[in-house]
């Protein structure tokens, strides 16, 4: 098949460049395994590691009362499944020591006269010393403890017949939580769609970011520069291989999500691929831009890492966008990762259709055009 001249001739040039790129990629024995292992490792590790669940909290008991009623309270704690008794002590300082040493995350102190006060005035206090190094976990621990104490108070009247009505059965408002769209609050369902985005982003950004600058470093860019190749042909030839690889990685990721993690897919796969195709152009355009502007692979990779980290941290993947201040929330509108994470979650978990995600899709398309225009524009056939 021989086509020459016009647009077909142009495409033929792109075809040659494509062949060269693919040959180079598959010849690189160091990179191949990494490219194929990345999706597995990332998905398996990330989706399991990224959880804020608080497992049984180890606590130290300081029970200065030692009565049947304090025993009962302690038993409430240990039998709840939220807490695990790590030891008992009667020295004040040992409590703080245990927290500093990481032996326990909480010290439960029941004062002397605990039972006496309950019987006498119908009210008593216990102290919970919580390791708040991790503020979020500390809040959760406090919530668990409150739940247990509330339950304890409810049965207190029957436990203390001697209190003669001082301890009334508590009047209570019962709270029934229900989480829609994900009633069991499975964390992996929520994380996996976002991690797929990280996967596609990292592969795309780093492969394209290292590419042109590598040719610069080893000098082969000059060989390309002396050919009659056009700018758009060059950029297309550089983009397409990574675009195909990116979609391949996405496919592998979606398969793992489906078969290993059983993440539901309420929307359509076609929509996911369509969005991914546009999104990849943004990422690859950015990578190529970094690559053409950098002088060394070290520099390119540093800049790529810098942007990737900031994009991912501000994407709402690990921490909710809602918890950011307003100016930061507005800033995230510029972040392509944020939009793709949002789209993936909505399509996979809520079954959103293309009309639901029009706005985000529009932003991504705009970003893709800007990035590609910049990448084509910044590529010059001169060596530095």
């Amino acid at each position, binding site marked *: 098949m021989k086509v020459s001249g016009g647009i077909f001739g142009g495409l033929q040039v792109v075809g040659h460049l494509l062949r060269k790129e693919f040959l180079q990629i598959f010849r690189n024995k160091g990179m191949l395994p990494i490219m194929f292992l990345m999706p597995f490792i990332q998905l398996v590790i990330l989706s399991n590691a990224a959880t804020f669940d608080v497992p049984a909290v180890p606590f130290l008991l300081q029970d200065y009362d030692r009565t049947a009623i304090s025993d009962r309270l302690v038993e409430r704690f240990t039998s709840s499944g939220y807490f695990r008794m790590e030891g008992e002590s009667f020295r004040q300082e040992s409590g703080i020591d245990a927290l500093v040493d990481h032996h326990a995350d909480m010290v439960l102190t029941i004062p002397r006269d605990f039972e006496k006060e*309950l019987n006498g005035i119908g009210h008593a*206090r216990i102290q919970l010393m*919580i390791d708040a*190094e991790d*503020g979020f976990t500390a809040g959760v621990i406090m919530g668990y403890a409150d739940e247990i104490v*509330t339950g304890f108070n409810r049965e207190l009247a029957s436990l203390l017949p001697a209190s003669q009505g001082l301890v009334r059965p508590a*009047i209570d408002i019962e709270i029934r*939580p229900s989480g829609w769209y994900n009633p069991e609050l499975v964390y992996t369902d929520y994380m996996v769609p976002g991690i797929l985005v990280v996967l596609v982003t990292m592969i795309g950004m780093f492969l394209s970011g290292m590419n042109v600058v590598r040719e610069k*470093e080893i000098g082969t860019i000059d060989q390309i520069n002396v050919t009659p190749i056009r700018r758009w042909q060059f950029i297309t030839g550089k983009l397409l291989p990574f675009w195909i690889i990116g979609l391949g990685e996405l496919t592998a990721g979606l398969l793992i999500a489906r078969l290993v993690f059983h993440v539901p897919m309420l929307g359509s796969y076609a929509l996911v691929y369509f969005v991914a195709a546009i999104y990849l152009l943004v990422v690859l355009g950015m990578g190529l831009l970094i690559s053409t502007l950098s002088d060394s692979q070290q520099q390119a990779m540093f800049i790529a890492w810098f942007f990737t980290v900031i994009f991912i941290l501000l994407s709402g993947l690990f921490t*909710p966008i809602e918890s950011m201040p307003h100016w930061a929330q507005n800033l995230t509108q510029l972040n392509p990762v944020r939009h793709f994470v949002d789209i993936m979650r909505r399509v996979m978990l809520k079954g959103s259709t293309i009309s639901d995600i029009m706005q985000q899709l529009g932003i991504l398309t705009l970003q893709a055009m800007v990035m590609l225009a910049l990448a084509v524009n910044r590529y010059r056939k001169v060596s530095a």
Partner: protein
Amino acid sequence: MRRFIGFVRKEFFHIIRDRRTAAILFGMPVLQLLLFGFAISNEISEVRTGILDLSHDVVTEELTNRIFSSNTFLPAGNLSSEKEIADSFASGRVTEVIVFEPHFAQRLQHDGIARLQVITDGSDPNVSRIVTGYTASVVRDFLREKGFSSSGVEAVPLMMFNPGLKSVFLFVPGLMAMILMLVSALMTSISITREKENGTMELLLVSSLKPLQVIVGKVVPYLVLSFVNVITVVTLAFFVFGVPCRGSIPLLLFESLLFIMTALSLGILISTITSSQQVAMMVALAGLLLPTVLLSGFIFPVASMPWPLQAISYIIPARWYLVVVRGIMLKGAGIAALWRETIVLCIMTLLFMTISVRKFSERLQ
């Protein structure tokens, strides 16, 4: 020795002359710290709350007022029937809907218990849990104030080391570990493999410098840079966010130096087993940085992970370093509480050093 110093100076110039890298090298820690301090947290500052009040009595109105009087909850409209709930979630108007059951006040009075339902968007389990927890604590406070549950046991919490429950306190040590890994391990491995790729490594090795001096000379500039970064982050964290350093600062610096050595030896190790910058970079990224961010307890607590991942976390240097930094900065811990972590880091450093020296001399023969 003079030659060695000359070589170190050359390496320094190499790094500093590359303006962009230098700017990022010093700018990144600052920017990331500001991001973590101002923008990234797992607290939720605004809960847009819709109310579906099926009772409309004194108690529900008072409780509703009570909920919105805190700054956390923002009113997002009253709903009139259960059918509207789905819509308000789908349009993203609300993060939470609170439903009061009919005859709320009456039931509270007669049966001693009334029910309210907290509906959240469970697709983010985290937000869902936090929001439910916030609501529960407002309701508890309300009951306590109304004198409904003045009897019985009251739990008095004491939040140690971080009374404001600020997440920046938690993130600063992790940030230090990540930056040190990036500068020390990743940059070192790339800069050594670059010499290999360009063929200039052979030139250095046939020069009058000893192989060990070449490696040490390559590493020293990054060691200095890392150390400057540590000091920048700790100082900024203290002055901008009030993150305290309750323990001894010399100890903190010493432990950081130890961790930098660990990271550098890892960087050298990577450069001895890889031959191109690209591979070195990917190995450093996938093998060092990702685990440092994800498995060290930086953002996600190690204790929450399934046991295989917890087991893996034991071989990640950052995990030990994090315990040390948090111990010193937040808890004022001394070496007595941290000797185990310190020894682990020492052993790791020695191990990586030994392996890379052996690999390196193998290559020379």
